[in-house]
C-alpha cells in the first residue's frame, strides 16, 4: 500500500501534486475535466490587495517547448476573492492555497490579514518572483535582504503554513532560499518563470506588450530540476518543485532531485487532465520501486 501523503510545514496534502498559481484559475475552470478532490492542493492565482487589470494585450508568445507570458497579476483583489471566489471553493476536498503578491511589504501583509479570516485557506504562497510587474514583485526575490524583509513581515501576519515562491532570475538561488528559511518560511517553491523575450522578426517589434515576459513550459525543466536539487541541498525546509512538469514522470524527476511536493502549471493548458494523471503515475511509480511513502521518493537520486 502506497501512502501519498506529504507534509509542508504543519499542512498535510493527500498527495504531492498541486497546481501552479496562474495556470489553474480558481480550480473551477478545470472542474469539467477532473475531480478536483484528487489533487494534493490548488494554488489559486496571484492575489493582490487591490484589483489589477494586468498588462495590455498581447501577453503571450509561444516558444520552442514553452511559452512566454506577461499577464501581470491580473486579479480582482483579495476582497473580491474573499466575497465571491472563496465561498465556491472552500468546501472542495483538497487544500486551497492562495498565492499572495504585492508591490510593497504593506501590500503582502494586508492580503494576509484579510485571508486570516478564511478558515479553509490552508496556506499561502508568497510570490516574490513575478517578472511581469514593474513595482515590487520580483525585486523582493532577487536580493537576500528584500526576501528577508517580506518573509519576516508576512510571518508575523500569518501563522498557518507559508511557502515562499522563488525566482530563478538570480545568480545563486540557494542564497535567497536560505534567506527565506532564516526569515521563518515553512517551505520554498521554485521555480517561477524565467525572464525571456521574443521578437516578431517581420514586424521588427517585440511580441509582448511588455517587451519581456516569463518563460514557462517543458523548455525550462532541466534548469528548474537543477535549481531544486541545489536548494534541497541548501535548506532544511521542504522544497516544492515546479517548472516545466508535463507529466508524472517529470514530477518524479523533481522529487528525486529533492522536492517534497510538486506543482504543475503550463501543462494544464495542453492537457487539462495532466494533474490527475500525474498522481496516478506517482502512485504506480512508487509501487514499482517498492516505496511505501513519498518521503522515500524525495531526494532519492542515487550515484551522487
Amino acid at each position, binding site marked *: 500500500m502506497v501512502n501519498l501523503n506529504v507534509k509542508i510545514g504543519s499542512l498535510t496534502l493527500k498527495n504531492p501534486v498541486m497546481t501552479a498559481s*496562474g*495556470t*489553474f*484559475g480558481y480550480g473551477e*475552470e*478545470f472542474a*469539467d*475535466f477532473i475531480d478536483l478532490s484528487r489533487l494534493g492542493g490548488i494554488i489559486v*492565482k496571484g492575489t493582490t490587495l487591490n484589483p489589477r*487589470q*494586468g498588462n*495590455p*494585450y*498581447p*501577453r*503571450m*508568445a*509561444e*516558444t*520552442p*517547448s*514553452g*511559452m512566454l*507570458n506577461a*499577464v501581470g497579476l*491580473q486579479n480582482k483583489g483579495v476582497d473580491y476573492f474573499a466575497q465571491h471566489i472563496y465561498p465556491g471553493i472552500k468546501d472542495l476536498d483538497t487544500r486551497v492555497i492562495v498565492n499572495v503578491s504585492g508591490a510593497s511589504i504593506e501590500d503582502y501583509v494586508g492580503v494576509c490579514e484579510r485571508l486570516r479570516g478564511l478558515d479553509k485557506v490552508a496556506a499561502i504562497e508568497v510570490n516574490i518572483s513575478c517578472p511581469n510587474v514593474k513595482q515590487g514583485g520580483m525585486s523582493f526575490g532577487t536580493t537576500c535582504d528584500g526576501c528577508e524583509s517580506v518573509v519576516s513581515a508576512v510571518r508575523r501576519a500569518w501563522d498557518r503554513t507559508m511557502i515562499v515562491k522563488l525566482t530563478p532570475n538570480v545568480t545563486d538561488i540557494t542564497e535567497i532560499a536560505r534567506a527565506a528559511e532564516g526569515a521563518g518560511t515553512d517551505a520554498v517553491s521554485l521555480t517561477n518563470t524565467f525572464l525571456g523575450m521574443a521578437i516578431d522578426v517581420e514586424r521588427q517589434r517585440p511580441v509582448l506588450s511588455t517587451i519581456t515576459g516569463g518563460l514557462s*513550459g*517543458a523548455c525550462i525543466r532541466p534548469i528548474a530540476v537543477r535549481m531544486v536539487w541545489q536548494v534541497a541541498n541548501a535548506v532544511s525546509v521542504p522544497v516544492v518543485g515546479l517548472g516545466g512538469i508535463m507529466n508524472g514522470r517529470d514530477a518524479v524527476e523533481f522529487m528525486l532531485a529533492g522536492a517534497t511536493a510538486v506543482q504543475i502549471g*503550463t501543462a*494544464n*493548458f*495542453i*492537457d*487539462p*487532465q495532466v494533474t490527475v494523471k500525474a498522481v496516478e503515475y506517482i502512485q504506480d511509480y512508487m509501487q514499482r520501486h517498492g516505496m511505501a511513502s513519498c518521503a522515500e521518493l524525495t531526494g532519492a537520486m542515487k550515484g551522487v
Partner: protein
Amino acid sequence: MVMKQVMDFTVKANDKHGDNYSLLKLAPVKGSVPPVKPGQFVQVEVPNSKTTYLRRPISINYADTHELWLLVRRAGAGTRSLCDTQEGSVLSVVLPLGNGFTTDVKGTALLIGGGVGIAPLLMLGSKLAVRGVDVQFLLGARSMSDLLELDLFRQTAPVHVATEDGSLGHKGLVTTHPVLQSDEITHIACCGPMPMMKAVAAIARERGINCEVSLENMMACGLGACLCCVEDTKDEGNVCVCTDGPVFNINRLKW
C-alpha cells in the same frame, strides 16, 4: 451548460482547398460529439510539430453528433501541421469552448465573413434560417480561389461575394459591398481579419445596427485560466476572449 471535455477524434477526411486551406472532417473515436453552438471553438493538439507547444484554437465549421468539421488556414507551424494531417490519424480535441453567437435574432441578419473567418458562419446561418430569420451572407476574400465552401453557403441562404481582385462578385473589400447599405439589415455577425471587423463595426455603429464580432486573440489555455487572450472591454476591463468570447457585441468593445 455543456460539459467541456478532452476527446480523441479520427481524421476521416482532409479536403484541401487550394494550397492554403484544409477542411478536416473528424469523427469521435468513442462516443458522440457534444452539442455545440455556432461560434464556439475547439482547442486541437498539434501533431508532429517540433516547434509548437500549445493547442491551436480553431472555430467549428460544422458539427453534428457524428462529425466535427474544422476549416484550417496554413498560417504558422501549428496550422501547417494540422493541414498536413493524414486521414486515419487521431487528434486530441478540447471542446466545446467559448460562448458562440447570439441566435435570438429578429429581422434580417447579415453574416459577414472574411478569409477563413467564414468558418463559424455556416452553422450560424443554418441555425438562424431554421429559426425563421431572414439570413444573408456576405463573404469576402482576396480572390475567387480563397472563397471556401461557397456551395454550402449558397445551399443555406443567399450569398453576396466581394473579392479584392474582382475575380468573383463585387470588386473590393466587403465593407464597400452595396448590401451593407441595405435598410433591411437589423443584425450583423462578423468573423474575419481584425481590420475587416473593425471596419464593419464602424459601419454598424454609424447605422445603429446590432453587431457581433468573433475575436481570435492569441490564446494559451482556452479555458479562462491563463488570462493571456484578454480583450479590454468597456464594462469589465480585461476579459478572456476564450470564455467571455470569442463573440462580443461591439458595444462592449473599446474599438
